[in-house]
């Protein structure tokens, strides 16, 4: 009977990864909404009074960090492609490169904060538009930490030689999320450039 049928269909639910991948897309929508809210908050706040606004030039570190994260998107894509073509060693290599670029991005962002402080733009600030700089980049960095965790997870799976369909699944999750973080940063950077 039925025990077998049911077991089979549980097994199918477990193996059927589409609903789980879909969860990742939905999560991306929630974090997109979070940033939409923060940037709208920025606009509403800044428009409230002429004394508000970023009122400085963004540090050039942001250009470097943007290059780093765009490169990491490329290596991420290469890693995913290698996984699909069963070239596991190059998959791991590209994953490591992506991770490294992610860490570089993180460090550069933190150094951008240092240059904010050096030019007297503090987090605690009567002009909250400037505090928003920290909030926007900081929230994005938190997501980067999450993204790095997803990457490490995919890397560990690959090292442990898990079944290919799981490996691909992890790689897919990682690449969806990582590309999203890349696009998100570009959105934030352009947004800030337009408002500086």
């Amino acid at each position, binding site marked *: 009977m039925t025990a077998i049928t049911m077991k089979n269909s549980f097994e199918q639910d477990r193996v059927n990864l589409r609903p789980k991948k879909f969860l990742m897309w939905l999560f991306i929508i929630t974090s997109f909404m979070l940033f939409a809210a923060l940037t709208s*908050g920025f606009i509403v706040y800044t428009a409230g009074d002429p004394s508000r606004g970023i009122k400085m030039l963004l540090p050039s570190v942001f250009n470097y960090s943007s290059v780093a994260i765009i490169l990491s998107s490329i290596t991420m894509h290469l890693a995913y492609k290698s996984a699909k073509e069963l070239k596991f060693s190059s998959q791991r290599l590209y994953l490591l490169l992506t991770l490294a670029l992610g860490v570089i991005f993180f460090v550069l962002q933190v150094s951008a904060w240092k240059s904010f402080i050096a030019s007297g733009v503090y987090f605690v600030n009567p002009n909250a538009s400037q505090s928003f700089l920290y909030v926007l980049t900081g929230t994005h960095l938190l997501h980067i930490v999450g993204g790095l965790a997803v990457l490490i997870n995919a890397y560990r799976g690959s090292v442990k030689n898990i079944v290919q369909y799981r490996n691909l699944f992890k790689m897919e999750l990682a690449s969806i999320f990582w590309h999203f973080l890349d696009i998100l940063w570009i959105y934030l950077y352009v947004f800030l450039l337009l408002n500086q």
Partner: protein
Amino acid sequence: MSSTAIHHTLEHSGHGHDDHGHHHETFLTKYIFSQDHKMIAKQFLITGIIMGVIGMFLSILFRIQLGWPDQSFPLLETFLGKWAEGGRIKPDFYLALVTIHGTIMVFFVLTAGLSGTFSNLLIPLQLGARDMASPFLNMLSYWFFFIASVIMMSSFFIESGPASAGWTIYPPLSAVPQAIAGSGLGMTLWLISMVFFIASSLMGALNYISTILNMRTKGMDLWKMPLTIWALFLTAILGVLSFPVLVAGVVLLIFDRSFGTSFYLSDLVIQGQVMPQQGGSPILFQHLFWFLGHPEVYIVIMPALGITSEVIATNSRKPIFGYHAMVYSLIGITILSFIVWGHHMFVTGMNPFLGGVFMITTLIIAVPSAVKTFNYLATLWRGNIRFTPAMMFAIGLVSFFISGGLTGIFLGNAALDINLHDTYFVVAHFHLVMGSAAIFGMLCGVYHWFPKMFGRMMDDKLGYLHFWLTFIGAYLVFFPMHFMGLDGVPRRYYAFTEFEFMKEWLTVNTFVSWAAIVAALGQIAFLWNFFNSIFNGKKATQNPWQSNTLEWTTPVEHIHGNWPGEIPSVYRWPYDYSKPGHDEDFILQTTPFSETMSSNLPHDFEGNAEAERIQLEWERQHQAEKV
């Protein structure tokens, strides 16, 4: 990724029953860290009920203060200690009571308790899925909710008391600990609790959406889904789009409170001292809050509307009137609810032109709401009504939705709102249209699906007693508040004895407090009925309400995976009640048209020429036999 044919098991061999099957369960995995959606639904429901009782108890405490402001109740001091010194509730504690009452009711009972229970129970069962997209995430969603509840309640056990800035936690009151005792540690706990709560809601919502879109059984296309599922689906979408915005608002508030930033704070002088924070905008918080807050009220009511659709159709023994219109109005409400938030902010000094825009969008949202109401009435019209307790509560919801919705149209008018804002008129409005309507929807669902959840029936007589006490009680409590509001009596005031023009409302307040106490006692009928029936109720049959939907094809005894064999396929929409020509007054969604030749209608076949030909053939033969 291969993904089609999700539920189609490749082999099905033999028959028989084998319920101690596929894996071993311990007490811990079955009842505590369960990943089975039916158990998680019960966990949400029971936690929701407990939170509901607590929220109701808090409201009785502040009703005592409002009804008898000059009287002392020594018993209160025994229980509340310094918060009710001399037997009278203190002003600060009164505000804490109102705040936590609102928070618990809106978020913990009517969001988590309602959506959490019925999404978990009904989505897999009515769509034909073994479980949720991610059972693990689902379990986590419950436990985050549980932690949020514990943290929220723990604020009653700290020195400075719970948060006191209202459920809308407007800064600066909520942001400055010196402003009120509750804005100290109590507010911090409130914020932590809500972070857990939002995480829980989002995990739940992501799961519901993914399950609905990816895991329906064969034949269950979107337009064959019961209206409950449509409502829960759109509710989850609302949650996904609006809760992150609350996160943004709350995060900035946390920075203002704990790091000294000034997103929201400016020009504050407290007890002669100038606060350091300058340049912030408290209105910014209101925008962020109400961008969530308004969709939130629809997050609360839409599941209740969905449940009601199902129960009214089943118990009128009629197809729901205007199924497509019902779906489109839910979609309309979902979209419109994102562009009306400004109606909560008419008096914040908003540009009058902008106020006009929000007024128009607000009045437009009344249209889909009215469509739903008329469709309920049309479904009831000339139905073969069975007044089960669930049906009574469903009709009660329709009544509250109408009487509360009408006052929304007054409030939505930017000019009238100058008078009515922050008066008891608003309190009357939202307690009828949201509070009462949604809780009636929830109770309706509990009475209706109790047999599915626990395999037993609830007692009808207690159900009727509960209904009438609650229904009459709610009107007696909230209806008089309209008149107080029209007279300008403000909400959230501690006592009305200090103002000459409000003194005349004291007798009304006493009356309202009595009505509230009686209605609260009426809930004992429910609690007894609910908990007693879990163990001693009459054993339920498989389909006690003769309903069409898939959940009633599962065995009464729960099994992990819901259906013992293959998941049934679906052939028709869920509302074939009293179909002319059929020998019973309901046809299950799993009954193919080939078994109901005598009742099929041409449009049932959705243009399938072959099926139409067979049907015509059959009818011709049948005609011939008759002659």
